[in-house]
């Protein structure tokens, strides 16, 4: 009998694989966390959205607790969360930086003029290369970065008032203390 069982092993492995694949069909792969949580932010230097002659780099994130919000004008969910970001910026509890991702400079500027600008500064990542270093899967994504420049949290998808009150602000308060 053991002789026969041996040849069933490949079949058994395959059955297990099918179970996972079947389960996988009903899961959302977009919700992948960043392997960067707990790591220092990736090194980068980009131009500022409002001024192509000025640059912004990873060094700007040192010494204070910040949010980095990845957004683009082509992204519908970014439009949805934008008002929330503006509100958050008004409270003055945390500096919000933006990473304008795979976008057009002119469009992005108009967007900020029209809908309000919650950002301290925006890095302009037109070809998404810095986004790749940050492990961006799609906009919007929001990172919380501590004083040492370590990424502490990543939120994928649009921010809502609930998420800000329940997740973002408590963590920001903790990092500040």
């Amino acid at each position, binding site marked *: 009998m053991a002789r*026969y069982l041996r040849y069933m092993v*490949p*079949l058994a492995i395959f059955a297990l694989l099918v179970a996972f694949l079947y389960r996988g*069909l009903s899961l959302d792969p977009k919700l992948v966390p960043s392997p960067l949580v707990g790591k220092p932010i990736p090194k980068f230097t980009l131009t500022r959205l409002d001024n192509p002659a000025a640059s912004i780099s990873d060094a700007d994130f040192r010494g204070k607790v910040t949010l980095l919000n990845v957004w683009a004008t082509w992204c519908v969910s970014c439009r949805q969360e934008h008002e929330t970001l503006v509100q958050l910026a008004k409270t003055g509890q945390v500096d919000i930086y933006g990473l304008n991702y795979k976008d057009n400079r002119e469009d992005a500027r108009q967007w900020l003029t029209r809908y309000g600008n919650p950002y301290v500064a925006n890095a302009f990542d*037109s070809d998404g290369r810095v986004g*790749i270093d940050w492990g961006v899967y799609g906009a919007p994504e929001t990172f919380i970065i501590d004083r040492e420049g370590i990424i502490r949290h990543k939120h994928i998808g649009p921010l809502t008032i609930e998420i800000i009150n329940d997740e973002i602000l408590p963590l920001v308060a903790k990092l500040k203390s």
Partner: protein
Amino acid sequence: MIPELGHFALILALSLALVLSIFPMIGSLNNTPGWIALARPAALGQFFFIAIAFGCLVSSFLTDDFSVAYVAQNGNTLLPDVYKVSAVWGAHEGSLLLWVFILSGWTVAVSMLARHLPAVVLARVLSVMGMVSIGFLSFLLFTSNPFARVFPVPLQGGDLNPLLQDPGLAIHPPMLYMGYVGMSVAFSFAIAALIGGRLDAAWARWSRPWTTVAWMFLTIGITLGSWWAYNELGWGGWWFWDPVENASFMPWLAATALIHSLAVTEKRGAFKRWTVLLALLAFSLSLLGTFLVRSGVLTSVHAFATDPARGLFILIFLCIVIGGSLSLYAARAPSVSSGGRFDAFSRETLLLGNNLLLVIITAFVLLGTLAPLIYDALGWGKISVGFPWFNRMFVIFTPFLVVLMGMGPLTRWKHQDPGDLARQLRVALLISLGGGILGSLPILHKGSIWAGLAVMLSLWIVCSLAISLRQRLRYRKGLAGLWQDLGTKGSGSYYGMVVAHFGVAVFIIGVTFVMQYNVEKDIRLSPGQSTELAGYTLRFDGVQGRQGPNYHADRGTVHVLKDDREIAVLHPEKRVYTVQTKPMTESGIDVGFTRDIYVSLGEGLGNGDWSMRLYYKPFVRWIWFGGLLIAIGGLLAASDRRYRIAVRDQLSALGNDGLIANGGS
């Protein structure tokens, strides 16, 4: 009218695939010659109708028939004709059509070229290929019809993804699919042999050249894909361990194990059960790759359109094909005899070691690819597996594989005296150790342990190949002797092995050197300004606008100087395609045997200033050159005279029979 014709041709092809998969199989089981004889005409008919369907889609693209939804999404009147044709496989529906087109092509090739097979075996092989074809044809017709019409008809098409508008990517999918689908031949031979209960050296000999050719195409496809990524993505990388890339790499690993294992089965009659399992595995991984790419269970930078309903269809199909074949294996394998005996130290054991290592690497790649999915499904949270994990795994296993690679060709079948082998390889060991030490010292570049290891492993392969060649040509003198030797039976296999293994040595150097000594620079330059990169001076001469057929480009000019002498002028471009308005980078590359200078435009910073990325990539060409050598090795091995002699002998004996069967179609 033409799209309907294509659609109808696909339906006819499906009916013929049904005929092909049912009648010859039943006929072969209860020995009905008339039913067995149906195999060849059915295979030919299937190919004929799929070719018509394929031709229809090509013509819809060439005539910009935007009433066809697929053409409207991926075509455009401004697209150059070459890319109109390659747009056929630029997205989901069309690439599936290419899949079945190639599958039917392989089926016809088997039916024409494998006439020397016993009719019963051939009927079964073709029949199994027909079954696979049913799955893909129904997938096309029921979930992804490329000929579906759209109303109202758009005036202009959505254009081909700009990423795919590159000569490398135009031929990359067909090559890759030739490899994927070609694995179905080895698979079908294995199933036919399991059904017939005849797993013997003859079976191995029949399936060997087919497997080698499919493996060669897979090698070319992967190499081209890597080369395309390097040219087109603009960040100088050549492999990303992306799920889509892994999907092509896993069948390649399994097929590499298979071609080595087939050698043992053909020569020594050993490893039969293992070989047959590898044949099932190689094709199963090809199908799994299709599932991963097409179902959306994993995210990928390749981001093709994905759809869960299609995923479910492929999953059911996987269950039938892979589950069915593994069940057949479980039922039949216990009764297969063990075949040739061999000692603990022999070529057989070394090849077994090679096989185990390759299968372990395959398992690790599979695990790494599926880990995010497994974690998620078990509720352990979410992870992503990246570069470091895969790279570490390769650094661990490759040296063992290479050590075996050096010993293998010099080791005898059945029994080898270890002391004897050690004496033969003494020189190789000394040279490679010496080279390794030199390589890790800062002579050429700054030196590193890893570079030393790479030099050592490559020299080990090259030296042991040289020793093996010297032994083989012991009694033949000079070039004339080599020429004479090339004409002998079995020389194709031997020289194929030499070239492919040499390719591995070249590849190892390329990979390691480019990873160790890569120099990268992000910089802002004004026109006329120069910068220094790894001993070269790069002078930026500004950016001009240029209008392409379906894009507008900013074209930079960068002069590369070495010791004040100009050696190249590079034109990196930043393109914006008119329809999809996605910025695309075209890198400017000065290609060299020992280094590439790679310039990629960032963006305009006003006053003619541009940000730029500059790379110095030592030995990066060796990666693809190695891949090419490996593929050429495969071609040499597959063209071995002994396969052709076998065919000719059989043909002259059965010539009339073959003609009759052909005339029937």
